[in-house]
Every structure is written in C-alpha cells, then in structure tokens.
C-alpha cells in the first residue's frame, strides 16, 4: 500500500472494456511527498472507491514535489486534494478524506445511496 511517486494508474483493469452504461470515473489525487496525510488520503480513497464505484474508476496520484507544474492546471492549493475529473463537473475535495460522508457528498455519491 503506497502512494506512487509517479502518475500511476491503479485498478483500471476494467476501464477500457467496460461499457459506459454508468459513468467512468477519473479521479486525481494530488500529494506532496509521502506525508502521513497523503498516505492516509490514498488509503481512504481506495476504500471509498472500492465500496462505491465497483471498479469503474481510475486513480492518478500526482506528486507535486516531482511534477510541480502539474498543480497549475487544476489550481491546486491544498494538499492533499482529490479532483474528480470525470464525470463532469469537476469537483475538488481537500483534506485527508477521513470524513467519508463529506467525501461522498463531495463526489456527488451520497444522495444516490441514501
């Protein structure tokens, strides 16, 4: 269990083959080094995705210490930040994602499962 140092695709084995009858999720997690907060955020994100998205997702982890210029396009200020690139609209969730309910609200997932 580790946050990758490079842009890494995790758990995308069904991404290409699955038909987009439901949205295909693209999530991007911005971190700065392997800080405890970053590791915690990645762990929390994994759990939520597994529980809620049933494999139709793709997570990119971007380490701004290694690729600082990438933070510009997504207007990243806080670390860690989770960006929902797809489905649109773009959503941003900041923090270590330890409050699952707020993460789900942030990802527009909560009303669906209520």
């Amino acid at each position, binding site marked *: 269990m580790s946050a990758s140092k490079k842009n890494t695709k995790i758990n995308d084995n069904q991404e290409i083959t699955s038909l987009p009858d439901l949205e295909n999720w693209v999530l991007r997690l911005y971190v700065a080094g392997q800080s405890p907060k970053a590791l915690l955020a990645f762990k929390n994100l994994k759990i939520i995705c597994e529980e809620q998205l049933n494999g139709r997702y793709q997570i990119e982890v971007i380490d701004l210490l290694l690729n600082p210029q990438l933070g510009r396009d997504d207007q990243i*200020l*806080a*670390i860690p930040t989770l960006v929902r690139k797809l489905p649109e609209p*773009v959503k*941003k969730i*900041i923090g*270590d994602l330890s409050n699952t309910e707020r993460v789900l609200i942030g990802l527009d997932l909560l009303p669906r499962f209520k």
Partner: protein
Amino acid sequence: MKKANDQPKQNDLPKSLTGIQGLDEITGGGLPKGRPTLICGNAGCGKTLLAMEFLVRGATQYNEPGVFMAFEETEKELTANVASLGFDLDKLTAKKMLLLEHIHIERSEIEETGEYDLEGLLIRINLAIDSIGAKRLVLDTIESLFGGLPNTLILRAELRRLFRFLKEKGVTVIITGERGDEMLTRQGLEEYVSDCVIMLDHRVTEQTSTRRLRVVKYRGSAHGTNEYPFLIDETGFSVLPVTSVGLNHSVTTDRISSGIPRLDTMLSGKGYYRGSSVLVSGTAGTGKSSLAAHFAFAACKRGERVLYFALEESPQQIIRNMRSIGIDNEQWVKNGLMKFHSNRPTFIGLESYLTLMHKVINEFKPEVVIIDPISSFIVGTNDFEAKSMIMRMVDFLKMNTITGFFTSLTGANSELEHTQINISSLIDTWMILRDIEIGGERNRGLHILKSRGMAHSNQIREYILTDNGAELLDVYVGPDGVLTGSARISKEAQEYSEQLSRQQETERKKLALERKRKAMVAKISELQEEFEAESIETLNMIYLEEERNKAFLLQQRDMAMSRKADTD
C-alpha cells in the same frame, strides 16, 4: 506575531527601490528587501496598481524579475487593466521578466474532508519564483483564501508558514489586503507582516476624490509618517513629495513675445523664455484671460500651436470676449493652430484630469499650453493635491519645452503675492495684475513680481483694455503718489494746462519786448526826422546869412566906389 529574530539591523536594512515616484523618498529607499510588505486599503484605492508598478519598475529599471500571483483577476484581465498605465505586461512576460499567475479559488467547488495543508500553493509560488529567478513577488490578494477555505485555523498556520518560506527565499513581497472595519485588513494580515505596512486611502471630500498614502509602519527604518496624496496617471503612480522629478530638463535661451510690445519691453525687451512657466495672478476682472489671449494670438501668429485649457468658460465665450478687445483667435481655431479644451477638473477628479491633460498634450503637441485658471483645481481643502498636480504639470511641460501660461485668481481678501496654491516657486515669470482704486474708480495695474534669468522692469504699468487689445501705459508718479485712470488723465491735463499757461506767458513777454523794440525804433526815426528837419532849417539860415553878408559886402564896395574912397 512579532518574533525577535525578525528584528532587522538598524544600520544596514537593505531596501528594494520601488521606482515609484515619491514613494522611495518617503520610505527612504524603498521597501524592505527580502521581506513582505502589506499594502492595505479600500476597494478601488489602487492596491493592485501599486503592486503591479512595483513589479514593472523592478523589471524595467532594476533588472529584477517579478511574479504576480493574482487571486482575483485572470492574467488577461490584469494585462488589460494596467495597459492604461502604459505597462505592457505581455512584452515583459515574453522577456521572462514577469510572470502572471492566476490562482483560482472557488468555495462552491471545494469540499473539505479532514486535515490538509497549503503545500500546493507553496509549491506553485516556489515554481513561479524559480522559473524566472524572481526577486519580487506580489500576492493580490491573499485574503481570497479566507473566502475559499473554511478552516481558518489551518489557513492561519499555513500563512505563517508561507511567509517564513518567502523570507527564506529572500524575495521582496507585496501583499495586498482589503481594509477591515477595526483592523488594517479584514483578515488581520498585518499579523503576518511585521516589517512594513502601507495604507492607501481613497476619499471623497467636497465631491472630489483624492487618494492618499501613509506608511503606517516600517520596522527598523525612518519613514515619513504623514498622509501623502498620490495620483495615478498615464505614467503610473506618483506620490508627493516629488522632489526630484524632472529637474534635469533642457533649457533654451530662446525668447518669445508676450503679444504686447510694451510688456516685452518690460521683460528686458524680448518677452518670455521658451519652455518657461508663466503665471498671471490677480483678483477678479483684472484682465488675466486677456493677457493669455494676447500670448496665444502672438504664438499662433508665429505659426506655433496653442492648447488652451479653459476651466471655467466655454471656448465660444472666450473667443467672443476676446474679440471685444480686438483679438480674433477664431481664425487660429479654424486653421487648427489653436485648440480649446473646456472642462471642469472637479467633475472628473484631479488625477483623471491630469491624465486627460497629458493625453491631449501628447496628441496635439503644442508649443504653448494655457491653463485658465489653475485656481479652479482647488475645491475645498485639496490645496496639497492641487499643488502636486500643478507641479507635475509644470515638470511635464518643461520636460517637453512647452511654454506654460497659467492664470490664477486671487481671492479678494488675500494677499496679492500669495497664490491660492503655493506654486510660486515653480514659476519662472510671475506677473501680478492688481486693482488700483483712486478717485472713485478702479483701474488695472500690472507689474512683474519676478522673472527668472532676465533683467525685468520694476515699474507698475497701467493696464488698459482697448478695442485694439491690451495696452500698457506709464502710471502717473508724482508728489501726489501713483495715479491711474481718469485721475491720471486729469492730473495730466492739469499739468498740460499749467505748462500751456507758462508757455503763453513767455509768448506774451516776447510780444511785449517786440512791441517795445518797435516803439524804440519808431522813436529813433522820429528824432532823426526832427533832427534832419532842424538841420535843414539851420543850414538854410546859414546860407541866407552868408548870402546876406555877401550882398552887404557888395553893397559896401559899391558904396565906396561911388564915394571914391581910397581905402582898400
């Protein structure tokens, strides 16, 4: 939050020149180098412009690249906004002397879940600084973070970390902040910036807006503590005192006529210096505008271009009024040599008006600029700004070798040699028109208070407006004091009649003498005649006597002969 290690050394606090007119004088050499400076003020008071000028001057004058982090405006908006100040950001960006970066933060797009920090922001700032080797940084305005991120505890801790990081980085930073109700800034940014705080203010007094700047705090450095008015014009920011602006302009010895021959004579025979500043002050109705019209007419006649700022009258009114004293300036307006610009400066504010004047002057490129009257720049108590504005105007004109002709209205009760705006030190030639009240009438007098670089007349002249323009006459100076107008005329008449009667007396005496001479001559001839008459008579008598004697002798001889006398 003042930390002991923030305390700079008293003696050699390094400073970073801003290049902004006047600000470097007030701060004694610029902002603290390598440290943050807070600029706070209300909306629209020029914070962003000041910060931007700091970067632009740094890039163009001191070869220090700068980064502008804009939290509120995009790069495009910023570029467009400051283009009016003559800053070409695109060019500087292309030369890698400037980097604009928009930081977008939108509360509605952000969901907060748990712990976080602002490492992302620090990385971005760090990247921006390193990419062009920036020495200067502007954060405009970092308060937006408080709107975007709800957790102020984290935010404040992170801001402190950000400023520590920036100090280590050694960049000179300007942070802008909106003014709060009780604090200097709404979010208490002054807490993080302990080195230098500058406050900008934008006030409206008597319907006229004025901008002021104050250095609230400058740790480890002496600084001016007053509120200084500042202007924003086409050349950017300028704060008074502008002690050193434009004193290196070239001068000419070229002289130009004032349009009134007698006045030229008073100005050592040749008139004003080209490119000098001329002030005519006087109370109402003393003929200031007429003097201006003369000068304008003479300039146009020489083929020069004249720009006439009429601040209180319409062009038509001025032309009509001047025609009544025989000056036809309309011909010059028609052939494009003269241009009028009528506007009340108080309607658009002083700095806007200054900008406007600069613009019009740059377009029209005149040789002569007339501002009639400069006293209307003053509304209420803005003397200081008005002075600063006129000072800048005079400097600007001199730099371009444009002759400036200003009129100034002196209040009825104030001293004559005291313009409402204390600008006398800026003026090269100062003429005063005054009322002289004698014998129940008011007459105009003119004298030259000063005229730099020439031996001017010290005389008071009577200034008369005739159908053929203004004329200067000698006043009557005699045992009864200085007389003008009809008093002078009657005095002169009296003197004339006295002289006349003296002349007649002489004439009469001459005649009398002549008469006497004639009488004498007559007498002489009478005596001569008498003498001649007498002498003829006498001669006659003598002749007769001789004849008688002859006859007697003859008779005796005859007698003797007849008696045969023997005596013979």
